[in-house]
């Protein structure tokens, strides 16, 4: 296992690098709730809980599977010439050598690295949920997440982050997951949106965001957590982490400006949802590039991505697929953009970086790097789209994937979770409103039965 140094080996713990990776892992975990609110604020109030749950359940399911076999398949020894990984002592993560071992020479314990990478495995399927908002059966989605993690994410993560071919053979550059995370999730979102079909009333009924402050809250938590995602991907607290932190920051700033400018020119007004979306577009695009471009290069990448994504979110109307929250427009377009732009802006900051440091077209590197980047992006996109389409179609055939039209109209929160997101009414909260008068009589007995059961 190239990077995994077991207890035996003579690497010493580096408490500083470990402190940063522990922090980064926690930061990246927070991104998924952040995403949940970013998405949740954009749906209608009758389906916000389901959207939150689609994201939250990713943490629960992926977390358990990752410990059992996920980490091993993604970061274990290479098999089939870098198509998949796997090492027996990594299953269950309880092996003493693993508990005492370190990831790479940076002196970070294997478990810390495993948890950091887990958070990537969690948010990737979570990103997909935006494409199928308001209409997906909860347990069907849960099953999808487990299957997709195993069949799509683990191999791709192995190619890009682990012992697989993209990182080690093709030698393409993806510092924090522009391909494995965003291109991957974006392509999967496209496939699922097509498989599941449009929402009832799409393009006829208004489906505007029910809580825009939540959209910005989510975007803010995403931004905050993304520092762990990008700067943490260095695996150490050093100058490269500082560079990644810097490029991540300015690219995101530029992404906001790029998106708002397009809105100003096209729609006449800069919007809050646009600012939040532009930030995410910038973050997505800089993710693969954050340690390979200069701060000024990052500004360019952010501006381009922000503007491109702002234009791309309209594509679904032209092609007629209901990618409800623009997973394609933001993550697929943004992820591919960032991955490919490394081929132009890749520069040499003068430090060793895993995978060596190649120059892009604008820095005299010619087309060499650009080609690799395109190959990496396209391979991941196709692999993800095709397999997701297959899995999705299978689940839909089984009838466990899409809710009934009634459920959709009356609200998926009520249908799938037996809950209402908000009860603000003073009357309601007065505690005696008709809204639940039945409960007046009913609550206690029903409750008693329920809980005696």
């Amino acid at each position, binding site marked *: 296992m190239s990077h995994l140094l077991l207890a035996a080996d003579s690497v010493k713990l580096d408490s500083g690098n470990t402190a940063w990776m522990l922090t980064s892992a926690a930061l990246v975990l927070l991104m998924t709730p952040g995403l949940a609110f970013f998405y949740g604020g954009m749906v209608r109030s009758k389906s916000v809980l389901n959207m939150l749950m689609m994201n939250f359940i990713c943490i629960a399911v992926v977390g358990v599977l990752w410990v059992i076999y996920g980490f091993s398949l993604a970061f274990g020894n290479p098999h089939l010439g870098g198509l998949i990984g796997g090492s027996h002592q990594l299953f269950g993560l309880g092996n003493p050598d693993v508990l005492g071992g370190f990831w790479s020479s940076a002196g970070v314990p294997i478990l810390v690295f495993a948890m950091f990478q887990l958070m990537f495995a969690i948010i990737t399927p979570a990103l997909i949920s935006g494409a199928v908002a308001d209409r997906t059966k909860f347990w069907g989605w849960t099953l999808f997440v487990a299957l997709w993690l195993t069949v799509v994410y683990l191999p791709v993560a192995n190619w890009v982050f682990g012992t697989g071919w993209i990182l080690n053979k093709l030698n393409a550059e993806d510092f924090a997951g522009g391909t494995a995370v965003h291109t991957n999730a974006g392509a999967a979102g496209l496939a699922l949106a097509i498989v599941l079909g449009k929402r009832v009333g799409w393009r006829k009924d208004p489906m505007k965001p029910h809580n825009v402050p939540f959209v910005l809250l989510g975007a803010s938590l995403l931004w905050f957590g993304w520092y762990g995602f990008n700067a943490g991907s260095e695996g150490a607290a050093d100058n490269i982490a500082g560079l990644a932190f810097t490029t991540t920051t300015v690219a995101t700033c530029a992404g906001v400006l790029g998106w708002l400018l397009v809105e100003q020119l096209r729609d006449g007004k800069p919007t809050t949802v646009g600012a939040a979306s532009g930030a995410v577009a910038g973050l997505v695009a800089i993710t693969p590039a954050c340690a390979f471009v200069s701060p000024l290069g990052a500004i360019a990448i952010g501006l381009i991505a922000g503007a491109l994504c702002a234009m791309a979110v309209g594509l679904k109307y032209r092609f007629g697929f209901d990618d409800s929250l623009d997973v394609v427009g933001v993550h697929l377009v943004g992820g591919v953009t960032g991955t490919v732009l490394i081929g132009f802006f890749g520069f040499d900051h003068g430090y060793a970086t895993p995978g060596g440091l190649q120059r892009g077209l604008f820095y005299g590197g010619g087309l060499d790097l650009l080609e690799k980047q395109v190959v990496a992006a396209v391979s991941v996109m196709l692999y993800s789209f095709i397999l997701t389409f297959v899995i999705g179609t299978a689940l839909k055939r089984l009838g466990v994937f899409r809710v009934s039209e009634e459920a959709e109209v009356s609200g998926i929160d009520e249908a799938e979770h*037996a809950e209402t997101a908000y009860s603000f009414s003073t009357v309601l909260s007065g505690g005696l409103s*008709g809204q639940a008068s039945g*409960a007046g009589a*009913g*609550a206690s007995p029903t*409750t008693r039965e*329920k809980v005696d059961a």
Partner: protein
Amino acid sequence: MKLVTAVIKPFKLDDVKAALEVLGIQGLTVSEVQGFGRQRGHTEVYRGAEYTVDLVPKVRIDVLVDDFDADKVVDAVVEAARTGKIGDGKVWVTGVDTLVRVRTGERDADAV
């Protein structure tokens, strides 16, 4: 003058508005209400405790019309709001003594 009031299913509001525009009705007033009747509500569960919600969201529409328009309007609303399923709601007409348009002070027929 007459006041035609309708309590209908929320998602039928657009159809009703369209039907009224056909009749040349210029304006109306809408409010959110909750209905209790044959149509059943739903159940919610929080930490194992069940809540029966027996009120159903409805939309109330008030339209002020000329006496002779009243029947037309009623029929148009009934037609547009019907789904045939329980819970379609009610439409009723009440008499109005006087009507004034605030902006102009115009009265009755001119005020609609």
